[in-house]
Each structure stands twice: as C-alpha cells, then as structure tokens.
C-alpha cells in the first residue's frame, strides 16, 4: 500500500492537517490498514522535499501543521493511479511453496496438507463474511476491501482445489520425465521487470 499516494489523494481534496490526514486515511481504508503517526509525518516530510506537497512553513511540525498538494503532486497522483502494479512476475507465494514441498516429501500426504490450508482459509472467509452480515450497511470503503479479501482468499481455495485434483490424477498416471519448466518462468519474469 502506497502511503505516499494515499496522502496525495487526500490532499487533492483540499489542504489538511497532519492529524486529519491520518484519521481520514484510516477511515477510508475501512480501518483495515492502521497507520502509525510517525509514518504519516515522515512521508509528508519526504513529499515536501520532493516538491509534491507544500506546508505552512511558519507552523511547528506536528499534528497542527497544514499541507497542500502542488501541481507536481497532482501529476504524480494521476500517473500512479493509471500505472498497473507489477503483476507480471509470479510472487513468491509461501502456500504454493509448501504444497510443492509436500508433493516431494516422503511420508507426507499432500492432500492432507492442502486440506489444512483450505480449512484455515475458509475459516478466515467466514469471518469476513460475518462482517458483511453483522454490519448490515457496510461503509463503502470497507465493503470494497471485504470484497477484495474474499476474492483473494477464494482464488487461493480454487487453486488448492485445482491442485488437489491435478495431484490425484497425476498419482494415477505413470510419472513423466522431469522437465525443467522453472527457467522458462524465470526468464519470462525477468523480461517483464
């Protein structure tokens, strides 16, 4: 999460105080991403140094100091909004690694490993869904965050289900000679970087 750009976004609505920025940041992200005070002020300092925001130069640094976005800051924000995040290179997903390890490890039932993760994720999803149920009318920001979390976790369950089925089928077939697919992925990811 780019705190820098979140602060620029809040300032593009009009000048604000440091304390106000922190409170609004938390409110807009549904209080799912708490932010500490130090992070807000150090980020504001860097934004000012880079000419993306201006402050009331006479006031003391602290909660009562006011900030404004500059034209450069507005350009930076507009550019960031439209720049896709790096989704080209596969992330180092710990869960994927655990399943890959479980496949090779003698004496380990990979299906049992998969189920342990599946159960944990479904339990997490139950908690997010309960939030939707209990809060009735969720704050719009929080509702969007909850949807995103549910889809992210859901995609992990779908991957686990697919892996489960693929491994089950593979166990019934004679093993194919191992082919090095990994370098191909690495090369591809390297090009996109």
């Amino acid at each position, binding site marked *: 999460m780019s705190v820098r750009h979140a602060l620029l976004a809040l300032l593009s609505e009009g000048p604000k105080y440091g304390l106000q920025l922190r409170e609004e940041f938390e409110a807009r992200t549904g209080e799912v991403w708490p932010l500490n005070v130090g992070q807000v002020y150090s980020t504001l300092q860097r934004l000012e140094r880079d000419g993306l925001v201006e402050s009331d130069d006479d006031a003391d640094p602290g909660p009562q100091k006011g900030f404004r976005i500059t034209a450069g800051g507005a350009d930076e924000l507009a550019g960031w909004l439209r720049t896709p995040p790096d989704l080209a290179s596969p992330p180092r997903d710990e869960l994927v690694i655990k399943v890959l390890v479980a496949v090779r490890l003698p004496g380990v039932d990979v299906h049992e490993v998969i*189920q342990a993760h599946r*159960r944990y994720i*479904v339990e997490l999803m*139950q*908690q997010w*869904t*309960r939030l939707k149920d*209990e809060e009735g009318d969720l704050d719009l920001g929080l509702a969007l965050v909850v949807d995103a979390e549910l889809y992210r976790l859901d995609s992990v369950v779908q991957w686990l289900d697919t892996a489960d089925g693929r491994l089950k089928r593979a166990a019934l077939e004679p093993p194919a000679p191992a082919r090095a697919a990994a370098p191909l992925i690495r090369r591809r990811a390297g090009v996109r970087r």
Partner: protein
Amino acid sequence: MSGVLQLRGVSKTYLDGADEVHALREVDLAVEAGKMVAVMGPSGSGKSTLLTIAGALETPTSGDVLVAGHPLSTMSRDDRARLRRRAIGYVFQDFNLLPGLTAAENVALPLELDGVSAGKARATGLRALDELGLAERAARFPDQLSGGERQRVAIARAVVGDRRLLLADEPTGALDSENGEAVMRMILAACKHGVAAVIVTHDAQLASWADRVLFIRDGRVVDRTAPRRGPDSLLAEETA
C-alpha cells in the same frame, strides 16, 4: 434436542452394473434450528447424495436420518411425503421448476398443496419473488426466464411457508455475485427465524456464509471448520 436434522452413520451404496459405488460412508451430521451448515467437496464426492437422503428423497443403505427428532425409516410413505412438503424446502441442482406453471405459481404451489388459500399463497409467493428482485417476472413461465432467474424462483419456492429445514444444492450456481449474495442473505434470514439449512457447494465464498463448513471427499466427511469467530479478531490483527 433442538437438532432439526440428524444423520447417524449414514452410508449409501449405488449399484452400477456389477460395481458398487460408495457415494456416502458413515456420515454423521447434526444441524440445529437457526444454523446454516455448508458442505464442500469436489464433483462426485457425495454432496447431492447427502442432500437427497437428508430430504427424504432417497433412503440410505445403512444408518439413520432424523428430521425434527423423527426417524424417517419408521415413517409411512404418506408421512414422509407430508414432511417433505411441509417442513422441508429443497433447492435442486437443476432447479426442478414445473414448466406449466408461472414463476409465481411455482413458488405458491407447496403452500397451496398444504392447504393455504390460493390468495394467501400467491401473496406470500410474490413477496418472496420480490425479495429476490423478480417481481416483474412473476407471470412468466420457466422457459421464459434466464438460468439465474429460474434459480432464484427455485430458492423462493424453497423458503416460503413455515419450513424448518432448508436443503439447497448449489443454490447460486447460475448467479452472478450480486444475486448470489441476495440468495445467501435470504437463506440467512430464514435461519434467523429458526430454520436449519444445509447448503451444498464447491464455492468457498458461498460456504463462508455458514456457521459450520463440512468438507467431504469420496463420500466421507474428512474435516470441518472450527466454530466461527467474530469479525473483531480480523480488524484487531494490526499490521505492526
């Protein structure tokens, strides 16, 4: 006890020519009034079989099924049929709407069969359709509805009246996420009025509406979720 549905050591074996298919093996399940249980598992794991047995549509090869404390095995055919009509709402995987009846008539039918006056049954049915955004489709026949609309009519039909047990087989399969959520909220509302529900699905988002999730594989319950924790624990986990 308040167990609306109980399965005790239920097994089901189908004969496929000379082969035996063990669709369910020794399944235990208890669902109390007001609770929603989801059953997740891959295709062919026995989910629909479990539901048809719980809904008195099929008999188990061994084991007992009790609905509201009554063992189905000792009931007469007529009593079982009455129980199915009155107490159990069933959403089939392929909807099972009657093609000769409009959406509203399909929904009102179980009420009318049960002796509710036609006018009252119709009003109740229309209200259920309205809740699922189908008020304008009430007069259409099933073949004039989209797949998702047909599915919602089937849900409305299953929740109307004084049902105590709701059994739903992939109830949101043909629905987009918004309508899927509307359906789950409707089932949840029924649970809050004391209905016990079993939802069969391979969709984790759907299952996450349930109080408990059972995982089934090759006819056996292999795992279940721990009792649900409140959402507070989520928001308290600070990113330090």
